[in-house]
């Protein structure tokens, strides 16, 4: 099991990620436990699963080519949404995270899964991820330092919705 960092601390993880089978078939959903289901499964069986999501024991995960638009109506039902990074250089998940937070108002746990490396954590955090399932080979203690990489950022982000230029002006700096 990969190490989980949540809110900048190493924590135990109760969630079980369900993946498609080897032929692409959708997984069975076990009757108990905290499960994260693929988006396609959610879309197919939404009505049957909704109460479980609302009880806080079912989350959904998006792959990099999935659109967060598909969850727009349901986003507040989920305790957890995970976004997969299939390769460390694939940056689509950063946009997905911002859309989930900024456009659709998701307030639950937003978890990065897949190729999640030390050197990604800072930007992922800025984009609204608050949980990180580190790839197994990563050193979690070292990775914690990544959150302090930069003390500020120029742009708007989930973490800093007001861009630096407005904060500079407000502080009267020039």
């Amino acid at each position: 099991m990969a190490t989980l960092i949540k809110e900048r601390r190493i924590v135990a993880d109760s969630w079980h990620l369900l993946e498609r089978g080897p032929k692409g078939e959708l997984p069975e959903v076990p009757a108990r436990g905290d499960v994260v289901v693929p988006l396609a499964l959610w879309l197919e069986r939404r009505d049957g699963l909704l109460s479980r999501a609302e009880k806080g024991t079912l989350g959904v995960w998006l792959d990099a080519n999935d659109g967060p638009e598909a969850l727009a109506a349901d986003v507040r039902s989920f305790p957890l949404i995970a976004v997969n990074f299939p390769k460390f250089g694939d940056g689509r998940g950063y946009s997905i995270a911002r859309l989930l937070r900024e456009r659709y108002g998701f307030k639950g746990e937003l978890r990065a899964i897949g190729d999640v490396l030390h050197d990604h954590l800072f930007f992922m955090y800025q984009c609204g991820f608050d949980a990180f399932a580190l790839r197994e080979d990563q050193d979690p203690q070292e990775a914690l330092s990544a959150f302090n990489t930069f003390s500020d950022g120029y742009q708007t982000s989930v973490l800093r919705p007001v861009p630096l230029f407005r904060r500079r002006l407000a502080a009267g700096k020039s």
Partner: protein
Amino acid sequence: MYRYDEIDQKLVDERVVQFRDQTKRFLAGKLSEDEFRALRLRNGLYIQRYAPMLRIAIPYGLLSTKQLRKLAQITDKYDRGYGHFSTRQNLQLNWPKLERVPDILAELATVQMHAIQTSGNSFRNITTDHFAGVAQDEIVDSFVWCEIIRQWSTFHPEFSYLPRKFKFAVNGAKSDRAAVAVHDIGLHAVKDEKGEVGFRVLVGGGLGRTPAIGFVIRDFLPWRHLLTYIEAILRVYNRYGRRDNIHKARIKILVKERGPEKFREEVDAEWAHLKDGAATLVPEEIARIEGRFTRPNYLRLPATDARFEAALATDRAFANWHKRNVHPHKKAGYAAVTLSLKKTGVPPGDVTVEQMEKIADLADRYSFGELRVSHEQNLIFADVQLSDLHLLWQDVRALGFATPNVGLLTNIICCPGGDFCSLANAKSIPVAEAIQQRFDDLDYLHDIGEIDVNISGCMNACGHHHVGHIGILGVDKSGEEWYQIEIGGNQGEIRPGRGASLGKVIGPSFARAEVPDVIEKLIECYLARRDSEAERFIDVVHRVGAEPFKESVYGNADQRAAHRRGQLASA
């Protein structure tokens, strides 16, 4: 120069710490080769043919003499005594040691410099007109807008892992000297009828193996919306740009696959959510950025200078240099000067440590301690008094930078090529040199007039061959170096009425030794057909078409067909 505030400085310092840690983890075996590659590239560090290559950012090409002296020091201490100014207005060092790169970055940070996002799949150094702020046809000072976009694009949390590299150019004058149509995004400043500043926004241009001219996604984007609109474009690209094939990953391919209209609709739909949000620019921010630029303390001077006029009238060599390498200035009594890094026998763009130091001294003496790097790989002193020109010329000539060839055939844009670069299919520097040697007669050069000759050693097109009036591309044919010739390319609307265009290949490629002959035939063909000296090579190509040029090189259509039959028969 834009002067950092404490936050700008802190971010650059923090980058040094970050990269030092990444290098340490790589050397300790905690970061794989592949993963470190992605990280070092966004710090400008390549592993090249013989050694690493470090690309140092010179944001929008603007450099202070303090910075240039630091670059000289670094080049001396960590490299082999010379650097290479690139077509992205950056400086490349070809021999630094990997483990010392963090130290180099730390030294750069002391003079407000860095290597952030100079390569990799990231938002690259922004380029602009090398006459920004001094051009007579200025609409806005593009440096200010470049700096605003530099800040926005630096460490952008959402757009740091784009499908592919992303090149951005800003032009702030009437003439397009920034080649905005061949960038992923190009901005051309315009004013509307009320005098409000905005930008014509072009998307999807680029060179490389699939060259394309950008399309105008917006005719007039009011300046306040600049950042939110760019954000919308980048978000559409980041989400939908192809990631399955590195050769199809640039935004130009997405634009092509979607179609420009559909692409525009998608951007507009995204922008509808972002428009008027917190990233909307305000006049106070523009003023703040403007205020952080140092400005030359110009004297009030008459429009002419008697000593200068006398030197022009009596010193022919000076007059030749003035004709090509001195450019008009918006302030009376001043001129901008190009130091040509295109002397025959010296690789285009290369400068030694001693030369860097001497150039810094001259810029202090003659041009308010600042200089610019042009995308044509020359250096610019932007603010020289007319009364100093004759003295400056003598000093510059002593350094070997007074070749009076700006805009002429020997002012060749050339990538480092197979002598240095591991991507290259063929050498490019010796080709440039052979052409320069062939056309060493200055009177003949002036007679030929303005022409851009661009050379790339491979289809990645770092030498911008697609937009050379004559473009030369090194190709590999079963292990041998061959050269394809294109004509008809144009980097942008420098002269009214002749916009950006891509060159077309004239026919089968040539051995290296044949290239100067071919160029000579093309030039002769042009000279025989131009209707006056004012009609440039590129104008003639567009007026008469490529056929006469092909004929001059390969013979007429019948001769070419016979030749092909002969080749087929012998094959």
